[in-house]
């Protein structure tokens, strides 16, 4: 059982959360010319690292807020969680 620290509610059981995927993927700016390659990268291509992974989680059965988490994909250790608008040094 993972225990995930929601930035708003504190440590809660994994059962209350939904996963939202890689948080480093950025949607291309729509008001500029977007190449096919940029769209492909945004929609399909992932770094998929072994180790530290910045990802989105949703406290769906709790406060219903989205937030970010640094989690180790090799050990499942959750290193730190952040509010969505927080600046994160990678």
């Amino acid at each position: 059982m993972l225990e995930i620290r929601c930035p708003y509610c504190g440590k809660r059981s994994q059962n209350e959360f939904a996963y939202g995927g890689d948080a480093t993927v950025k949607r291309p700016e729509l008001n500029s010319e977007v190449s096919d390659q940029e769209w492909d990268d945004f929609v399909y291509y992932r770094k998929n690292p072994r180790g530290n992974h910045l990802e989105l989680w949703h406290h769906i059965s709790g406060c219903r807020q989205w937030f970010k988490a640094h989690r180790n994909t090799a050990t499942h250790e959750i290193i730190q969680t952040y509010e969505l608008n927080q600046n994160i040094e990678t």
Partner: protein
Amino acid sequence: MKKYSVFSLVKNAFSNHQNWDVAWRDPEPKKEYEVLIIGGGGHGLATAFYLAKNYNIRNVAILEKGWIGGGNVGRNTTILRSNYMHDANNLFYEHGMKLWSDLSQELNYNVMYSPRGIINLAHSDAQMNSFTRRGNSMRLNGIDATLLGREDIKKIIPFADFSSNCRFPIFGGLLQPTGGTARHDAVAWGYARGADDHGVDILQHCEVTGFDVVNGKIQGVQTSKGNIKAKKIGLCVAGSTSLLAEKLNMNLPIESHVLQACVSEPIKPLLDQVVTFGAGHFYCSQSDKGEMVMGGDLDGYNSYAQRGNLPTIQHVLTEGVALFPNLSRMKILRTWGGIMDMSMDGSPIIDKTHIEGLYLNCGWCYGGFKAIPVSGLTFAHTIAKDEVHELNAPFRLDRFHTGHLIDEKGLGTKTWIS
């Protein structure tokens, strides 16, 4: 290679089975090979086997960082099927089913192929409609499929929940009579022995740490046992694909996720077929030892851990008990996890790459085991001829660019939603 037969069994019985030959050698790596296959799982072993047997390329080595049978080929739930809707999947996997049917003879190794039938249960009228459509699609491609009603299902699995207050009543199901199971370890060992017999070097505990690429052409690899040169290299490393691709500066439409499975304590014969629950994600078959072999959802977050967490097992078994109430009194003997290479449309990739001499086989999601023979055959073709086989032509890497996706379940890119 000495053939296994009833005579060799009798002969070896006289020496208390102490003098059997080793199934495959443990050679030192040569300096150079014609083809290197990275990954000694089912797909890698099968690829090397067919390269040697069908395409007469015998100067081949398989590089395996662990040991033969230690990865996903030993961690799956052994199900064989070709009950898909899209033509690309239907034709590909059905060719695989034909290979399964005489694999034991071809390998001279009993893979315990058991075409016991697979039943996908439906729990609503809409689901019956969709299964009818899928069954028709299968039959149009020459694959046997039978639509079963509630009463038919009741005759086959009377111990399922047919009560009136059941939350997800069984409306019927889709049966593929030729679906079934095979013993996963035997598949790995059989292919390893067969490949070795054809001259393939199987190098265990040999991890690839880097690639030599010069002018867009592959030259060889660096490994934990030294540098090895090769003209062609095939990647068959499933959940670790992104890690090796990163060393080649390649980004792939793949996420690695952990999928768990479990077995119960062994019981007397109860379940003859493979049965899947249609109102969630749960599938079940009974092994020859008597254990109920069960699986379901991914844990649902990127993982390389080869082990999962209890909530997923609990969730999957809740569905199991909803389908088969008598499971509730059984003990779980063990659970384990494997790392799935989840592609962004749920279908595999078998293709050449932009690097000359480098070939890619990945994206098997949860469906890699049944594909071992046909994946090996088509990947061997792709490597030997430097062009895709007609069966794997739809499974190109560039489909994510051209838009020719094969999204069997319409799930899109959210691989963790299963």
